[in-house]
């Protein structure tokens, strides 16, 4: 009997059940009227959710729709203000994560909850109620991890391991608790397509064994591919339930947003390619710390009018490359040229004055100072580029305030009151602000690292369209991203970074996901090394 047969029966069953309330004999978790309030904001408003045994259940919604709040209540790290949770037919009060684990609820976190200084086995022992003898546990870890195709070496220290392996630790840790429900918060955002496929196989196997999975993801393609049922949240309320296998990513997205999501149009206009604006020539840098990545002979020409995307799994040198281009990490002068002028040692302000603009990955702390107002954050990146923000050493608050309003309107940055501190904005809104702040300048060269990381579909479409429009207006745009959907949506040329080597940038039309995946998994290295030798 093939796996496919089983799957279809499962989804058909779900399809018929959507109409009435889905709880029945196979019900594992039945939440009714869950409500959670943070101050004035109703994060969850009478949410009903039913999860059945052996089901991969997608939880969809925009940023701030209340997904994380909801799963945190299931995992006992938040206390509901109202409503009830029934677990296998019994009303339960999940007071803390340990109680959740005891019931059989495990969680794999979006931001890893691992302890870097500890070994794999120590990390796992911390999550088990009775880990017992460490040597015995190490053997169990090896056995379970191999059985599920997620091999781990129990003695390794987490700090030495790449993200893909770290996620394995989280999953194996969860499996050792023998859970009946696994909650996964955006598990694939750090994986290569091949690693994600392996994860899907594991999930499908778990589902066959009767374990339920609550799956949170922004990637609607994969939700459609692996999930049996989907619950969609908007503004803290359940707005729809559906069978994702019968939907398209676009229809799922519009359910989440509540309106049609504008599709990004890149291909309609052929890029009008101009001069090389930014040139990287054999850019190399040693790793600054043991956990940083060295850059190895990276070469790239970024020309006016095009969007070049750099794909790659997190931690393969994207941050270092960005730091070198922006000027945070000085390199030899000839390695980086802006309009032909060597500038490897020049400051970030020098580069900004020559029309370059930079948006780093980490929006809070790197892209914006958390405790400063938005207008003050504008002054920080744009003081030297002629917006009359600074005169004779004095900051013009009026001018900064005007800019802040302009960016707010152009990029739909939502805020509770005028000119708030950066930290008070939600992740998606702050991302719109930090991208908008640079786009508002109409820069000649724009370097963006992870432009839409953790941003909902609507805001992501807005940012992507703005990037394309900027390129079409004659600027050079370099996008570093881990999101392949995004890359194929906006890029004219695609290069892949792997362990600090960059593959040659090839036209997007010649690239396939499989090819990008192979390059991510290390072929970019070989290619990069060959280019080195020439």
């Amino acid at each position, binding site marked *: 009997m093939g796996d496919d047969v089983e799957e279809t029966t499962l989804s058909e069953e779900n399809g018929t059940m959507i109409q009435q309330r889905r709880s029945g004999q196979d019900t594992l978790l039945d939440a009714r009227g869950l409500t959670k309030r943070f101050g004035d904001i109703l994060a969850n408003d009478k949410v009903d959710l039913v999860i059945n045994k052996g089901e991969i259940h997608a939880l969809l919604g925009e940023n701030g729709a209340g997904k994380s709040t909801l799963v945190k209540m299931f995992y006992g790290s*938040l*206390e509901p203000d109202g409503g009830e949770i029934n677990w296998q037919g019994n009303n339960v009060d999940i007071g803390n994560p340990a*109680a959740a684990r005891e019931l059989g609820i495990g969680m794999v976190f979006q931001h890893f909850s691992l302890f870097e200084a500890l070994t794999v086995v120590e990390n796992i022992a911390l999550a088990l109620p009775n880990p017992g003898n460490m040597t015995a546990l190490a053997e169990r870890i090896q056995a379970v991890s191999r059985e599920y195709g997620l091999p781990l070496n129990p003695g390794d220290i987490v700090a030495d391991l790449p993200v893909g392996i770290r996620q394995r630790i989280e999953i194996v840790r969860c499996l050792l608790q023998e859970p009946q429900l696994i909650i996964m918060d955006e598990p694939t955002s750090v994986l290569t397509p091949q690693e994600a496929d392996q994860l899907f196989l594991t999930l499908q196997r778990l589902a066959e064994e009767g374990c339920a999975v609550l799956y949170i993801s922004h990637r609607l393609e994969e939700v459609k591919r692996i999930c049996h049922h989907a619950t969609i949240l908007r503004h803290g309320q359940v707005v729809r339930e559906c069978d994702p296998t019968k939907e398209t990513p676009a229809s799922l997205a519009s359910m989440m947003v509540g309106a049609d999501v504008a599709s990004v149009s890149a291909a309609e206009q052929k890029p009008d390619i101009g001069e090389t604006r930014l040139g990287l020539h054999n850019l190399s840098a040693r790793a600054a710390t*043991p956990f940083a990545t060295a850059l190895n002979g990276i070469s790239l020409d970024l020309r006016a009018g095009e969007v070049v995307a750099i794909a790659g799994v997190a931690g393969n040198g994207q941050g270092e490359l960005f730091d070198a281009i922006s000027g945070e990490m000085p390199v030899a002068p000839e390695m980086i040229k802006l309009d032909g002028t060597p500038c490897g040692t020049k400051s970030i302000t020098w580069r900004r004055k020559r029309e370059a603009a930079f948006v780093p990955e980490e929006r809070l702390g790197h892209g914006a100072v958390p405790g400063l107002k938005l207008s003050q954050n504008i002054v920080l990146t744009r003081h030297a580029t002629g917006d009359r923000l600074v005169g004779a050493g004095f900051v013009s608050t009026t001018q900064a305030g005007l800019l802040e309003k302009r960016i707010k309107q152009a990029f739909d940055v939502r805020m509770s009151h005028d000119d708030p501190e950066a930290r008070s904005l939600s992740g998606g809104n702050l991302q719109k602000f930090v991208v908008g702040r640079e786009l508002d300048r109409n820069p000649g060269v724009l370097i963006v690292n992870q432009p839409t990381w953790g941003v909902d579909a609507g805001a992501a479409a807005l940012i992507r369209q703005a990037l394309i429009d900027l390129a079409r207006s004659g600027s050079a745009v370099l996008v570093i991203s881990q999101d392949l959907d995004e890359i194929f949506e906006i890029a004219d040329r695609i290069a892949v970074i792997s362990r600090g080597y960059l593959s040659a940038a090839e036209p997007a039309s010649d690239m396939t996901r499989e090819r990008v995946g192979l390059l991510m998994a290390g072929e970019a290295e070989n290619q990069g090394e060959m280019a080195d030798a020439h």
Partner: protein
Amino acid sequence: MFEAVLLTVITAATPILIAAIGELVAERSGVLNLGVEGMMIMGAVIGFAVANQTGSGTLGVIAAVAAGMAMSALFGFLVLILVANQVATGLALTILGIGFSGLIGEAFIGVPGLILPELYIPVLSEIPFIGPVFFQQDAIVYLGFALVAVVAYVLFKTRLGLVLRAVGNNHGSAHALGYSVIKVRFMAVLFGGGCAGLAGAYMSLAYTPQWVENMTAGRGWIALALVVFSSWLPLRVIVGAYLFGAVSVLNLHAQAVELDIPSQLLSSLPYLATIVVLVLISANRRLTLVNTPACLGKPFVPDR
């Protein structure tokens, strides 16, 4: 002569050893308590006062430990519950301790004190040279070594120690897994305070059995430096404490034999050694990362 020097090294090393092992536990949990000096001096004065009033050295020691813990409880309340800045609060605790101990101790200046009895371990203490040095010490000296051994064992071989290290390494994750960060840290801070109090008692009941204002004379700061020197590894605290103890004794002996080295230079040696060690351990970043509590000094506010 050599035997006498060795004996003074042991007495010089013991208080900083005990204070440092307590602070090491607190720092491993992620709390930087700069109030060691203040807790120590409070232990010294309370220990002296209680021993003097009751005539019992044991009661004095117990009272000193309690005084250190009371001081650390105040610190813990401020930095863990009210989330005050750890550095500022620790400095304030030191200033408070020095001032308050002076007030309490005013009545005891010049009063002859008790001295803790030396424990003669049968047979072993009869051995020439080795006997007097190693087996004729007071109970606190032995207790110091026992503390180091117990802390080393608990930290690296038990679940309690694993949780403690986890909390110090990543308090967000520890909280997400359901451990009570505040509780673990409070316990660690209390342990640190108790040890500092015990170290203080050693100062006023064994090292110099009398009360002198500000008698700890910066040993709390040396203990803090020692924790860094040991790169947060308990067994290295012994090495460091004896090294620092030897330097301070050397200082006295150098003055006695009128060696031509400025005493200020000698007193600064422990700190210079700490700087050198800091440079050396930061060269091996991996080791530093594994042993340095990543959350050291960072405030934690649970999101519940």
